[in-house]
């Protein structure tokens, strides 16, 4: 669908993202060249890796918009698949989970996205929380290994919830029928992505600049009160300024951005806690080339379903 190209405000939003990316890329280059800086070398590499990832996301997102709603479904379906793959690789499972895992990857996840595509809201909303929640323990019980039964069931269920169910609410935004906003839903998705990712970046930047008091150093030593609040305020401000691209008034936009930022923070913190729990700091380094998808979308996984439901509750009659 080339409809996206004729949406001027969408193009403006997208153009803004591209300008920002070019600026960030240049900053990254300059930082890399500067030898005598007191900024940590790995911090700069980290920053550049993040920007490279954003370029990729941006290209893929643009392509998916051109293809139309199916494109976004496929894109987010792939993201879910890769995130779940990473999660399951890192989380210890047992031999008896094999078939349950096969079902999770190849039946439950595709079905979730298929239902989103069908716009069958009542079904996709209960698919993983209700149906998979019953299916997974049953399937593990049938396999016959009862050791750590509850733990194994929860691990798989949680992975499906976060990587699959939660994230699938992002492309589901494209089907909300908001009066006066028909055909412009892609802007909503882009809005969510921008606010969420900018919150991640700004938290990081503020944290590096003025971060001092750690929030939960055991969970993630990089998260500070200064960084998180700085990110929250500045990303909310940015989101508010983007109200023109959404069906929201500036005040509503501020509320939505604020919610996205808080949830993004929560997602990042929870995924950090999982990583500390299974002690994968090392593993993260081992799979660096293929890994890191969960790190980049953890905040989106938490923000997407709540944002979806808020828009649906307040703006869809």
């Amino acid at each position, binding site marked *: 669908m080339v409809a996206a190209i004729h949406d001027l405000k969408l193009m403006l939003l997208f153009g803004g993202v591209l300008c920002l990316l070019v600026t960030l890329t240049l900053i990254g280059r300059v930082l890399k060249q500067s030898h005598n800086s007191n900024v940590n070398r790995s911090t700069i590499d980290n920053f550049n890796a993040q920007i490279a990832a954003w370029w990729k996301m941006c290209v893929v997102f643009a392509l998916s918009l051109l293809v139309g709603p199916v494109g976004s479904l496929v894109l987010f379906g792939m993201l879910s698949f890769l995130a779940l793959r990473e999660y399951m690789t890192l989380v210890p499972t047992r031999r008896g989970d*094999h078939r349950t895992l096969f079902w999770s*990857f190849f039946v439950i996840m595709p079905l979730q996205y298929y239902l989103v595509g069908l716009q069958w809201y009542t079904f996709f909303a209960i698919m993983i929380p209700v149906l998979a929640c019953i299916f997974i323990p049953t399937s593990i019980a049938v396999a016959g290994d009862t050791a750590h039964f509850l733990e194994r069931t929860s691990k798989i269920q949680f992975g499906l919830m976060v990587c699959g169910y939660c994230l699938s609410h992002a492309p589901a935004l494209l089907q909300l029928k908001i009066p006066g906003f028909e055909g412009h839903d892609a802007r909503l998705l882009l809005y969510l992505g921008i606010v969420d990712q900018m919150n991640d970046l700004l938290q990081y930047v503020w944290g590096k600049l003025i971060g001092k008091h750690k929030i939960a150093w055991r969970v993630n030593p990089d998260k500070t009160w200064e960084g998180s609040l700085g990110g929250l305020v500045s990303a909310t401000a940015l989101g508010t300024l983007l109200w023109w691209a959404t069906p929201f008034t500036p005040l509503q936009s501020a509320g939505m951005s604020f919610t996205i930022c808080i949830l993004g923070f929560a997602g990042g913190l929870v995924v950090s806690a999982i990583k500390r729990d299974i002690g994968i700091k*090392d593993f993260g380094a081992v799979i660096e080339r293929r890994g890191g998808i969960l790190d980049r979308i953890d905040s989106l996984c938490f923000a997407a379903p709540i944002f979806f439901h808020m828009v649906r509750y307040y703006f869809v009659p």
Partner: protein
Amino acid sequence: MSEGIHPIASLLAAVARGITGVQVQWAGCEPDERQRIYFANHTSHLDFIVLWSALPSEIRAHARPIAAKDYWEETPLRHYLAENVFKAVLVERGAISKANSHEEPKFVGRSLIEDMAAALGDRNSLILFPEGTRGTGEKVGEFRGGLYHLALRRPDVELVPAYMENMNRILPKGEFLPVPMLSLLTFGKPIQVEPHETKHPFLERAREAVSSLRRIGPA
């Protein structure tokens, strides 16, 4: 093996790489076209194809797996895959250790070593899983004697240990549908039989060379 790589082999290798998302690390040596015996731990049917696909294509064209005759000759499809697609060297499992237990005639084992040495020829490499059977992935099992005898027979060939991680979670023994988790493959430093080294110390050292490449460790 001047005919090059069979197209089905390339296809299966691509599929296996996709499923396992394997990340290859040459930790103890570099990829090289010289003749080598790659020996690794064995936990999955995917092991050979993933290890093989991890080799650069010039090397891959001359790398042949050692496989169990009883399993690979069981059905026509398996036989075709082993013989025509992967140019496997089919050997009888356990024959070599039996041959060395003084109860069986020694020539059975000796002819097997000769077969493998012949398969090496003057430019091929071999891929060998010295445990002889698939394990659970918890620890590397005892090695069978073939590696030792082959190393003595062909001292010019380099012995490269390799460790494959997570393959048992992707496609464990007894399952036929894979779960697409990520895996790691690490090639270690080549080893050789030291002068006067006997079989058991060498096999133990070889096993240690493989299991020391483990990067994630038991959960």
